[in-house]
């Protein structure tokens, strides 16, 4: 009985320790702390670990240049273990315990959605580096990955115009990003005159590994005589078995090309790509892009990670851009204070790695070139097409009826993430907060 009591007391004491640790407040002296909020274990570790490394590299490089505002940067790395409620808890911990000034993190939409209220409440800064489904613009979040109009729609345009595709398979993992992207694409394709029976939509669970049936369905769908293409929003893990099955069932890119939005150099690293040559991916960056900035980035990366074999990919570039933008905004504002940075960052221009310039737009998305690459037998992509100009990221899709009227603008006088252009009002509760 007394043992019980003691254990309990120990437990409570432990909980109090947590709370005592919490009183470390943010300070203006000492290093500026930068939060890195990625999954280092669990299902998403496969993609996110690299992003943690690239953040460490960027911070190290910045420190070599003398830091920021004369202060050194210090990374705060916490593993969110692919557990999304944990991500929210850790985001809060970063601010309240570690006193970070900005956070770079998340990969999945659910992670972003989970931490979003925390950033809103604590007035933090989150730089989110991955392409996503759009339909969101939040004051404290900067979307440095592609929105659907910066990836999906140009890719479909390319297939329609350059490859003459008339019949479409929209295959995706069953979650929000593919669902929304496919809804947008469906509307877009039908606007372009594609008949509903020429569109096949297919969803699979996460980590799907047996693709025999689906690949054969795609083959059947593609044998109608009309040129067919597959638009794949299949999520990371499931891609390797999917492409293996494509290769083995002899789906030739020249006959049925697959264009993917979630397959980059990192995903191809686990694959022998020789049967896949010619399948496509749409991104805003490829490792193979031949620019001095990119060459330098890759060299730094290889030196940092200590291996010549490691690849770079689009979300890494997004972190590169996002980090530089934050640095730029902090320098412009002269402080790391969130409100000042939010005001300063709109309009900040930094070079991207593909020879262009990324600009932070008022809707907290950025301008990006869209590149279409074909898979090569060395696991790299060969850019076969790119947009003439930079494409500004669009938070609200024009192809979904409810969101077509919305617009995001975080500058005065609108200062709203979901401004309704018809009623000229700010749509939600965020209006009240501002």
């Amino acid at each position, binding site marked *: 009985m007394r043992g019980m*009591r003691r254990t*309990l007391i120990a437990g409570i004491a432990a909980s109090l320790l947590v709370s005592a640790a919490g009183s470390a407040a943010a300070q203006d002296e000492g290093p500026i702390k930068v939060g890195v909020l990625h999954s280092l274990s669990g299902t998403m570790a496969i993609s996110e670990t690299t992003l943690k490394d690239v953040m460490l590299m960027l911070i190290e490089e910045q420190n070599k240049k003398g830091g920021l505002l004369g202060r050194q940067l210090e990374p705060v790395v916490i593993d969110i273990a692919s557990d999304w409620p944990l991500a929210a808890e850790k985001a809060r911990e970063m601010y309240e*315990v570690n006193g970070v000034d900005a956070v770079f993190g998340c990969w999945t939409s659910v992670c972003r959605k989970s931490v979003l*209220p925390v950033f809103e409440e604590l007035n933090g800064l989150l730089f989110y580096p991955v392409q996503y489904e759009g339909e969101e613009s939040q004051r404290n979040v900067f979307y440095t990955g592609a929105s659907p109009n910066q990836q999906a729609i140009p890719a479909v345009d390319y297939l329609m115009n350059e490859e003459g595709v008339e019949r479409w398979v929209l295959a995706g993992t069953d979650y929000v990003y593919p*669902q929304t992207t496919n809804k947008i694409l469906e509307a877009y394709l039908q606007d372009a005159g594609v008949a509903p029976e020429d569109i096949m939509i297919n969803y699979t669970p996460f980590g799907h590994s047996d693709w025999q049936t689906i690949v054969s369905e795609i083959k059947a769908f593609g044998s109608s005589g009309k040129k067919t293409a597959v638009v794949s929003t299949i999520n990371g893990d499931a891609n390797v078995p999917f492409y293996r099955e494509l290769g083995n069932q002899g789906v030739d890119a020249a006959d049925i090309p697959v264009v993917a939005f979630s397959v980059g150099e990192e995903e191809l690293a686990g694959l022998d790509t020789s049967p896949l040559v010619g399948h496509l991916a749409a991104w805003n960056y490829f490792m193979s892009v031949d620019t001095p900035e990119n060459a330098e980035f890759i060299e730094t990366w290889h030196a940092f990670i200590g291996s010549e074999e490691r690849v770079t990919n689009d979300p890494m570039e997004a972190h590169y851009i996002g980090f530089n933008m934050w640095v730029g905004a902090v320098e412009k504002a002269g402080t790391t204070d969130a409100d000042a940075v939010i005001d300063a960052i709109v309009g900040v221009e930094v070079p991207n790695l593909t020879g262009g310039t990324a600009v932070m737009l008022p809707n907290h998305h950025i301008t990006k070139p869209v590149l279409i690459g074909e898979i090569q037998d060395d696991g790299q992509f060969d850019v076969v097409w790119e947009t003439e100009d930079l494409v500004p990221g669009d938070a609200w899709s024009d192809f979904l009826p409810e969101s077509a009227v919305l617009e995001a603008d975080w500058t005065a006088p609108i200062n709203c993430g979901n401004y309704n252009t018809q009623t000229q009002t700010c749509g939600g509760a965020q209006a009240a907060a501002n």
Partner: protein
Amino acid sequence: MITAFFYRALGAKLYWVVGLLLAAAILIPASNLLLPVGHTLRVPNYAVALMGKYLTYAMLALALDLVWGYVGILSLGHGAFFALGGYAMGMYLMRQIGSRGVYGNPDLPDFMVFLNWQELPWYWWGFDNFWFAMMMVMVVPGLLAFAFGWFAFRSRVTGVYLSIITQAMTFALMLAFFRNDMGFGGNNGLTDFREILGFSVQAPATRAGLFAATCVALAVSFVVCSAITKSKLGKIMISVRDAESRTRFIGYRPEYVKLFAFVVSAIIAGIAGALYVPQVGIINPGEFAPANSIEVVVWTAIGGRGTLVGPIIGAILVNYAKTWFTAAYPELWLFALGGLFVAVTLFLPKGIVGTIGDYFAGRRERKLVEASDTPPPDLPVMRPQNAESYRGETRPQPAE
């Protein structure tokens, strides 16, 4: 009758646990709200939410222990009841957003709007009413447990077979909730909550209130569980756990005993889930993941299965360790956690509480011998039956 039922639960342990929880329910919110920021004794906001989360986990572990520790049903699907309670609460919170969603649609949650849903599905009806939602928090997990248990226990599915089909149940639910067509927000789940009963979910006062509510709910669950385990039915539960067919031959129906415990346990898990959601701000199908349910089993085992205090301590301890490790050693914490599980199984087979209980039981027995077989005078008058240890301890004469 009811009073007697709860009266029986009383005992030193119960006083301690309930007392501590109620003290926490008052002191921690008070310290958080009343003391100035930066004060040494102030509990910071995040710690309130964190401890609130631990306590909901503790409730879940307690619920699992009621079926595993006392009736011997190793459920590898208890996360499902927790998640269902959470979803019921999440649906209420979603409906509370009302027209403040990004699209300004008064009825449909945002995720339905942008996937072109035209009207609210029928199973969302009524969730704008708090009390209806709270009822569903208990009814949905309870009904699922009832339906599942009704068939499984009557068919005499036992042991690993039962464990595996509970796992199949939560796995199937996870896959189902991942589907966007189900109308529960798919992988993103339900999030971006604004207010609960008119209070902003982000306000420190609301959080403190939720924390206090969690403490109270855990205290009530603890009292209920201890009353159940100390009743005659509680003894039957233990009999079912140890010798199921023997209880049948003296006329009890183990299937109903199990069903009762399973449903009560599911309801407690559902309430825990409902308290969890507003405190962490999201509910998504990941909560149904079989691994989560296995983790609950681990907490219970570490704390001490078959004791009611054990799971509470186990849940808090393991989750505190997880919080600490993930921040302190983000690359290595799985080694530490995995090692902890192995070590506890090998060296503390009865869990922390069970082992400590044995140690003290041993000491008391020695004392008893010295005191020439008379019961120590400081024992409570009511039958202080030891619910903590189903193996080791003797109990003194009844007072009646």
